């Protein structure tokens, strides 16, 4: 456990970059995670999430930029036992039972949690006597979670912790995770499940093409994408005319109902009522995170394409 003032630095990534040959996996990422904060690194496959996480864990050396974990370089923080990680790979060691494996991991840390507690918390207790080679995907995931927790680390880094897990398994995982995070741990997790980021993170960092394209609470991310939708019952109005209203990005018609996707819903609503006083049953909704996500990452891809993939 890090003492109180050592926590002060949190986790700081500055101008972090990494390329693999021609592929610029991570391009100058700046990110600060306050102690106790739970941050989701959200992005599509190939966005640079795993590379970023590997650099935070000290598994990959950045080409440029630095990572500081509670004021230390990642390798030093790892050696001090401040960091617990759940990697995407990592089939548990063969020829050991689950309980033995977790006990082995515990022996590496200066102040581990009791093995029995961690097995119970992660739901691994029910198969603790089983060989690690005979685990289902969901069981192996629990073992990796237990391995990440056993050292009672101050920073937990989880790379797509629920990839390939069924809905029930995911629910249980996040339930356990929230219990852990409640103990004041700093958590950084990568995911491409939007609802997972939305439901579990204090803050979402959206990355695509190796860059941070949005960073803030889930509500702010949605607002940044500016996607609000106006629905109204409006027979007879032309889709083209609706689409040309100020603040409207696109218009669709479903029978008598029109749906307007807006970049500025306030302006669009005023214009709609001005031009089409017959509009009824008007509904304005915030866009889903999914829409925001698609919109923001699409912008990024377009920007990347127009500059020939070069950094701006």
């Amino acid at each position: 456990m890090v003492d109180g003032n050592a926590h002060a630095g949190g986790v700081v990534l500055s101008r972090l970059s990494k390329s693999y040959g021609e592929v610029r996996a991570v391009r100058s990422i700046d990110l600060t995670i306050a102690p106790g904060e739970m941050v989701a690194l959200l992005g599509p496959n190939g966005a640079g999430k795993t590379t970023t996480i590997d650099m935070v864990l000290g598994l990959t050396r950045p080409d440029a930029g630095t990572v500081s974990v509670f004021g230390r370089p990642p390798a030093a923080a790892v050696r001090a036992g401040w960091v617990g990680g759940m990697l995407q790979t990592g089939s548990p060691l063969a020829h050991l039972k689950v309980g033995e494996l977790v006990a082995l991991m515990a022996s590496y840390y200066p102040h581990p949690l009791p093995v029995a507690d961690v097995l119970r918390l992660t739901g691994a207790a029910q198969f603790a006597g089983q060989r690690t080679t005979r685990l289902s995907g969901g069981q192996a995931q629990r073992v990796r979670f237990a391995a990440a927790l056993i050292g009672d680390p101050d920073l937990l880094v989880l790379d797509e912790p629920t990839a390939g897990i069924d809905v029930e398994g995911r629910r249980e995982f996040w339930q356990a995770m929230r219990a852990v995070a409640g103990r004041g741990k700093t958590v950084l997790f990568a995911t491409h499940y939007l609802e997972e980021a939305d439901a579990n993170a204090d803050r979402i960092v959206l990355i695509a093409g190796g860059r941070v394209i949005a960073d803030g609470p889930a509500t702010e991310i949605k607002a940044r994408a500016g996607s609000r939708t106006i629905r109204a019952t409006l027979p007879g109005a032309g889709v083209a005319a609706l689409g040309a209203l100020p603040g409207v990005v696109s218009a669709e018609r479903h029978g008598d109902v029109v749906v307007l996707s807006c970049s500025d819903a306030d302006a669009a609503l005023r214009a709609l009522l001005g031009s089409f006083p017959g509009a009824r049953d008007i509904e304005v909704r915030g866009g889903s995170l999914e829409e925001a996500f698609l919109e923001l990452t699409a912008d990024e891809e377009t920007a990347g394409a127009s500059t020939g993939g070069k950094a701006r």
Partner: protein
Amino acid sequence: MSNVTHLRYEIVRTFRNRSFFAVTLALPLVLFYAVALGQRHATFDGTSFPLYFMTAMAVYGAMFAAVSPGARIARDRSGGWTRQLRITPLRARTDVAAKVLTAYLVALPSLALLYLAGASLGVRLDAMQWLEMTGLLLAGLAPFVALGIVVGYLVPADALAPAIGGVVVLLALVGGVYGFQLATSGPMFEVMKAIPSYWLVQAGKTALGSGSWPARGWIVIAAWAAVLVPVAALAYRRAAIRA
């Protein structure tokens, strides 16, 4: 503290790996009886055949034990376990040290088993000679341990079994482990005498005689170790950087 637990589980893992034991313990034993039973009164290479072949088969098993850390390193790497270990406070060198110690712990029963088998076919050495022979064998295994680690870090896991198996078999063949020598004079014999397994196989005869290898034997073992140990360290460091 943690090192002891790590070593303990490393040993547990090894001893639960039955197919590994089949190779390191049973194969040399079976080969020993299969070949030496019919030649228990023969002489070979200036000594009794059972003594020669007992030593040779003890070396065979011990060689497999000695390179085994490499196989474990490769498997841990391919399973992603090495990466998992690297985000714990455990030092990688502690892990490697535990694997090397385990290799020697596995080599010992393999030697003991062959000694018993040899004794059953009339091999008689006094206590000092048994000890000297064991000492020579353990010292001579050092280059093989380093070799296993080099292969374990540099060769991809799916090519590992043929790589390690091939190298061991080749060195065994040239060293005279299989109960015949490729040459007893001339340039091929000089090649044999530059291979550490040759000196390992000679350890039995040596124990009967002077008790120690001639300077040339020590130089060969030391030279192989002097080359392979730094290469192993380099391979380890390279792997540590690349993850």
